[in-house]
Structure formats: C-alpha cells, structure tokens
C-alpha cells in the first residue's frame, strides 16, 4: 500500500462517464420497477380474484425466475431469444425487459401481500357507499395496498439499482460498466474503486432515506 502513488487527476477526467453511468443505472432500475410493479399487480390480482387455473401458471413464473441467476436471465433474453426467433432489440431494452420480468416475480408476492392486507372493512365501506367492484379496486384496494407495500417497494428499488451492475455483462454503459471502462483506460484501479464504490453506497442509502421519508408521509401500518 505504501508504494502506491495515487493519481486522482487522471480518473477525475472521466468522472462524467461515472455520472452518466449512475443516471443510466437509476433509470434502468426505475423503468424496471415500474414495469415489474405492473406485472406484479396484474398477476397478484389474477391469483387473488382470477380463475383458479391461472394460479399454477403464475407460481411457475415466480418460481422459475426466483431460482435462476439474474445473469443467466440477462443472457437468455439478450443472446438466447434473438438466436431462436426473429426479434431484434438493443442491450438496454433487453436488460430492462429482463430486470422487469425478474422484479415482477418478486413484486407479485409484495403486491399480493399488500392487497391481502387491505382490511375487509374498507372494501365493505366502499361497497356500502355504492361503489362497484371495479371502483372499489381502483379507489380503495389499490391505493391502500400500494401504501402498505411501500416499504417493500423501497427495498426492491434499491436492490434493483444494485442489480443494474449486471447489465455491464452485456455492455450496457451503466455505472459498473463505466467503472470498468475507466479502469481499462487509465489503469488507476484503486482510484476508480475509491470513487465508484461511494457512489453506489451513497446513492443506495440516499434512495433509501428519501423513500423512508415518503413512507412516513404515505405508508399505512399493517
């Protein structure tokens, strides 16, 4: 350690690359959780209120995705599917699709737990003031369930943010990719990690802090 000469100046020149990478990581995570929540919500509603035969299908999706590495799913969608059928998409689209499918499998459970935790009495109160089941769903069950699920959603978002680092495996220029890129350009490995690791750390905890504040405002205790 003693004879290592730090040279942050060289690395600093590429700091923009890290910043762009960070933004892309946040965007990838945001797009994925949005789509994943939609998947999770629809499947949770189907498994709660829908036909019985749909339940094993949903369970199969959830179990498959949750027991297979994300990296493999990323490869499967990016290399595997286009090799078998005539469908072209870029790495970013491919990764967002994968991470959405991946997070969807976790969010089904989160959403189902949220919907199930909506007190029966609230649904009855909705019926009692003359709301149809669709309106009860839209105005009572969903807003309540989302608020109940908020803490889980915050945690999911942070872990998805960290998972975006796996996109570097298919050359999506997110934060981890930017980090490796600068390293290969400058060979200032230690400096790159000293710079990039805090970016992950600070961002993870900043997101968590912001979402916890939002929870305090909106969340409903179970």
């Amino acid at each position, binding site marked *: 350690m003693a004879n*290592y000469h730090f040279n942050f100046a060289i690395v600093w020149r590429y700091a923009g690359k890290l910043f762009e990478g960070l933004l892309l990581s946040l965007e990838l995570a945001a797009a994925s959780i949005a789509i994943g929540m939609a998947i999770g919500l629809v499947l949770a509603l189907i498994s709660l209120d829908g036909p019985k035969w749909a339940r094993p299908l949903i369970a199969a999706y959830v179990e498959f995705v949750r027991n*297979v*590495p994300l990296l*493999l799913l990323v490869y499967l969608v990016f290399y595997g599917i286009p*090799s*078998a059928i005539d469908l072209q998409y870029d790495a970013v689209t491919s990764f967002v699709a994968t991470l959405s499918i991946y997070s969807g499998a976790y969010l089904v459970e989160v959403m189902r737990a949220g919907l199930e935790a909506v007190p029966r009495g609230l649904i009855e109160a909705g019926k009692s003031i003359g709301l149809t089941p669709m309106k009860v769903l839209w105005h009572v069950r969903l807003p309540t369930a989302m608020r109940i699920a908020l803490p889980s959603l915050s945690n999911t978002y942070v872990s998805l943010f960290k998972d975006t680092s796996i996109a570097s495996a298919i050359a999506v220029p997110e934060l981890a990719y930017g980090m490796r890129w600068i390293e290969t350009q400058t060979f200032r*490995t230690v400096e790159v990690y000293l710079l990039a690791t805090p970016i*992950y*750390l600070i961002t993870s*905890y900043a997101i968590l802090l912001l979402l916890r504040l939002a929870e305090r405002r909106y969340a409903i205790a179970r």
Partner: protein
Amino acid sequence: MATLIQTLPFLVDGLLTTLLVSACVIVLSLIVGLPLGCVLAFGPLWARAPIRLYADFVRGVPILVLLYFVYYGLPAIKVNLPSLLAAIVALTAFKSAQIIEITRGSFQSIPTGQTEAAKAIGLSLFDRFVHVLAPQAARRFLPPFVNSVVDTVKGSSLVSLLGIVDLMLSLQQVIGRTHVALPLYLIGALMYFAINFPLSALSRRLEKRFV
C-alpha cells in the same frame, strides 16, 4: 440433440464448480457471520459499531463491484489472489454481512420477556444463551438462511465474469462452440432451478413451521 448430450459432462463440471464455490462461501460466511451477528445483537457499542459499519457498507454495494474490487482492485496494492480465491473472498464478504443481519434479527426478534423470565429463574448468562435464546433464535434463523443459500448459488454465477468456469461460463463456452443458444440457456436455467427450487421450498416450509 446429440451435440447437447455431448456437452453435458462439460456442463456438469461447471455445475460442480458452482456448487464448490457456493459451499465454500456458505461455510466461511457462517464462520464469520454467526459470531459477529451475536456481537451485534449483544455486544458493547465499541464492538457493535465497526460490525454495523461493515454490514451496511457491504450491503450498499453490488456483489459484482465487490468481485471486481477484490479481483482487479487488490492487485494494485500488491494483494494478488487467484481468481477462484478472489471470487470466494468477495462472495464471502458479501454473504457474511447478510448472515450478520440474519443472526442479529433472529436474536432481536425474541421478546425481552424471555430473557427476563430466564433471569428470574436464576439462569447464568451462558445458560440463558444456550437454553433459552439460541434455540429460539435458530428457528428464526433457518428460513432466511436457507433463502440466502439460494441467493448464494444464484450470485455465484457472477464468478463467470472473472473467467472462472462455473456452470454459467461453461454454458457460455458451449454456446460459443455449438451456436445453440436458447436450448442451452434453458438447460442451464433448469440445472440452477433443480438446485434452488428444493431449497426455496424448504425455506417456505420452515417459515410456515417456525414463524
């Protein structure tokens, strides 16, 4: 089809590496994480603070970045680890932080009345731990721990990015040679699934039973 069957021994080799890495990581992180978790649950502040810092640090950084850090970063300060060892070190660093959290959570979710009752019947600190707290904590520990074994097996696929020929990389290599991508990815997925699904199912059963 015949080519797929020919590739199987190669994939099985990779699978064995995956299992070896996962097993090492699990065992090592239990050795590191369990005692540190107990300290975090019961220790004095000066001992808790560095452990908390470590756990929070590691959990705030992606596993992949930890892997890169140990494999590419440490050599810059003259710590050269062969890739397999670097991978195990990095994954253990990550897993230990999780084990620490699970251990702490298992102990802290035990109602304080249990300790008070144990004190009231005159049990020593040692007896309280062995006969009252540890058995209860073990039941709370198991379901998330088994779940975290699943995560370890999944996470071990990242070692392929360091050039270690685990199941993931052997898949990539076979695909590179045969150009049969989708079926091979699906076979690989099923192999991971075959290991992980029973564990996930076990975790759920333990949870129903214990919690």
